[in-house]
């Protein structure tokens, strides 16, 4: 985090005497940049000050002030805290210059802000809706936009207690469905916006080519066995070679952020489970960390809880990576065998999660100031058995039967290459970034929890291809086992939660950005509190969403079959991509 005392004397203020002011609202940090100086500011930030990695871009709707704010979080790829800068524009017709030319990683995030908040980014090469469909009425994350099943501004709803009369929301809607139309809508006069516009931009014909081949546009997904869910890639093919690839998402857009802004702080924890549903413990941690930052000194996490958090997060990483390797091999055509072996280990770890938290996948285990409950009897021994005995043995076995396999190597080596410069520019995170030779791991670069106490290496590989992204996951599993061994040995006795947990609490006004190194990459939660029991803004910096920015670059020039494994090697989970 930025040191607040430094902001007033930051060299950036000297460099930009006009147009840049420190953000002086209570609980806020960083700088406010005038919209017309933004591109210049960002360029200087990247080239002169070393903040080359733009992690998160999002908008906040300050309805009472009549303002729309765009918040940027930038980091140095060598490590350290964030530099936060903001642009404020009027709520009516908000226009902000696009930063895609400076940080290509802003691409999808700006599109998302346009889609959900209606902020127009001038100069964006492809400013279309990304999560909702083209033609949808309204920008749903605006505070004055109300959905069909809207009940009340904030939870808990008054209709539940004390006079709770049970009803289903659809019974209240004249259509019997979760729909709402503009009052003047006439289905007869209206023509749907189809996919033609999407396809039209993708076809291009080469002129000075002797051998003319017609390009074909192929849809992969949203129902496709190897898109890891409901993801769609529109691919322009020349023969078998990918000329262009456009990811289309939003097929699992479950309105996480809109619901999150209506929830109380506690209610959001089980919802974060459903973001990246393979690694719910890490999601819990990211969110809890952001809210604990807002709470500040009011809350201290006990030692034992800190250790339990690390243990659960590292187990989650193993589960996720082992599953990722299984699906990657599935995509390669090794139908199900590696997956079956991987799932065996996963099941054994899920047994532990189930015993501790009550659910295999949706753990809901973290609380503000600790974790929900202590380990039940017998679980500690089970964890030791796995970490010290079974997992190292099984990971070696996995290594033995896959890494040297000639087919795997032939398919993966040199495919989908991403150079380190590109990886940073596209804001790639996690294994994708580290496989490209950038040793950036939030656990080391900006340590949180008690990660500074453990000995482990940041896994890094240098080729940036699919094979390295497979190897890096193996490396990371090994490092996770190493951390787990230390954590289990050192696990102290004591409380697991600070004070007695409350079901509703007020959080001091301000903003906070909590980030953890999730299995997919940097998982950030941007929370703005207005001092009440519900967050004013709740945004998730989803690594699988932002990692996809680099997908088309990785696929260009490769074969269509390789597009599948490149996607597999990025390891996305649609719950997090679309939120």
């Amino acid at each position, binding site marked *: 985090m930025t040191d607040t005392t430094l902001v007033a004397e930051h060299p950036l203020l000297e460099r930009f005497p006009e147009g840049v002011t420190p953000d002086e609202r209570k609980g806020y940090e960083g700088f406010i940049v005038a919209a017309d100086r933004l591109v210049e500011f960002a360029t200087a930030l990247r080239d002169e000050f070393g903040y080359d990695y733009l992690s998160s871009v999002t908008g906040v709707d300050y309805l009472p002030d009549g303002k729309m704010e765009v918040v940027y979080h930038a980091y140095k790829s060598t490590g350290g805290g964030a530099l936060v800068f903001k642009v404020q524009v009027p709520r009516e017709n908000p226009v902000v210059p696009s930063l895609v030319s400076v940080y290509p990683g802003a691409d999808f995030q700006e599109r998302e802000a346009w889609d959900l908040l209606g902020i127009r980014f001038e100069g964006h090469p492809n400013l279309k809706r990304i999560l909702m469909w083209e033609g949808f009425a309204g920008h749903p994350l605006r505070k004055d936009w109300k959905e069909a*099943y809207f009940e009340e501004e904030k939870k808990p709803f008054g209709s539940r207690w004390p006079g709770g009369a049970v009803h289903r*929301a659809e019974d209240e809607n004249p*259509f019997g469905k979760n729909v709402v139309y503009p009052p003047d809508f006439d289905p007869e006069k209206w023509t749907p916006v189809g996919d033609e516009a999407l396809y039209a931009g993708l076809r291009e014909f080469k002129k000075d080519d002797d051998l003319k081949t017609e390009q074909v546009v192929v849809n992969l997904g949203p129902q496709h066995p190897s898109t890891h869910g409901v993801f769609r890639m529109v691919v322009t093919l020349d023969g078998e070679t990918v000329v262009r690839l456009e990811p289309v998402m939003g097929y*699992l*857009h479950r309105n996480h952020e809109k619901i999150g802004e209506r929830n109380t702080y506690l209610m959001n924890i089980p919802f974060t489970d459903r973001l990246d549903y393979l690694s719910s413990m890490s999601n819990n941690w990211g969110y809890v960390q952001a809210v604990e930052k807002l709470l500040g000194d009011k809350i201290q996490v006990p030692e034992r809880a800190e250790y339990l958090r690390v243990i659960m997060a590292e187990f989650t990483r193993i589960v996720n990576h082992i599953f990722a390797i299984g699906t990657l091999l599935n995509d390669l055509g090794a139908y199900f065998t590696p997956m079956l072996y991987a799932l065996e280990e996963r099941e054994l770890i899920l047994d532990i999660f189930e015993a501790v938290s009550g659910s295999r996948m949706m753990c809901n285990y973290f609380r503000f100031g600790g974790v929900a409950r202590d380990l039940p009897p017998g679980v500690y021994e089970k964890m030791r058995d796995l970490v010290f005995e079974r997992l190292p043995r099984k990971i070696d076995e996995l290594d033995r039967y896959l890494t040297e396999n000639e087919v795997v190597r032939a398919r993966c080596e040199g495919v989908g290459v991403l150079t380190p410069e590109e990886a940073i520019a596209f804001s790639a995170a996690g294994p994708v970034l580290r496989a490209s030779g950038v040793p950036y791991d939030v656990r080391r670069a900006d340590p949180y929890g008690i990660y500074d106490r453990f000995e482990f290496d940041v896994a890094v590989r240098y080729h940036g291809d699919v094979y390295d992204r497979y190897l890096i996951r193996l490396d990371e599993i090994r490092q996770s086992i190493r951390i787990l061994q230390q954590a289990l040995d050192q696990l102290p006795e004591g409380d697991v939660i600070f004070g007695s947990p409350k079901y509703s609490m007020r959080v001091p006004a301000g903003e906070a950005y909590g980030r953890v190194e999730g299995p997919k990459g940097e998982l950030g939660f941007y929370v703005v509190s207005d001092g009440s029991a519900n967050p004013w803004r709740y945004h998730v910096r989803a690594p699988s969403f932002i990692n996809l920015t680099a997908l088309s670059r990785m696929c260009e020039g490769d074969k269509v079959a390789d597009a599948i494994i490149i996607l597999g090697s990025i390891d996305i989970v649609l719950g997090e991509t679309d939120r």
Partner: protein
Amino acid sequence: MPDELNAKGYDIPPEMQNTVAITTLDKLYNWGRRYSAWPMMFGLACCAIEMIATAASRFDLARFGMEIMRPSPRQADVMLVSGTVTKKMVPQIVRLYNQMPEPKYVVAMGACASGGGPFKEGYNVVSGIDKFLPVDVYIPGCPPTPQALLYGLMKLQEMMDKQSIKSVRWYQKGDLPEIPVPILGPDLIDPRDYPDFEFKLRQAYAEKTEEEAS
């Protein structure tokens, strides 16, 4: 011959019990379908991971004859709607269902597919796939554990057992009507709403102004 195939009330001589079964056509038909209900390889959200876990070694769908997950709807019998159905996705789901050959079944796996689940209030979420497709079995849970899914699939098999060729809807005269594919407009439009669309729209806004007035 499996014992369950035998119809009651017929005495088979002991020496032929393993080779001959006296049965009804319905029983044979149901027996055949029950053990070869191939699910479609199609996952939507969190529940899909539990579906994969069910197909894997610990729970092993193969014991129910369902291990062959077909990516193509043309070869699938059961559509496991495993996860949140969003408005953006529902046209594709309906299209896939229309492409499946009869006999076909739909299992709504999990709270989201059954009734919208925790995301029901969201603007992009369909509150239950049964708003569009005829669902045979609903499996509650968020997500249902693999064993809960297996229980639901066993309920589906029980249901198949009770069906008769005479009465199943796909052997009646005439073609089965296709389900109209929803359209993505300013919000999701169900073509079946068209006849009284304007009436409902007016109703919706009358209610809204009433609420504001009070």
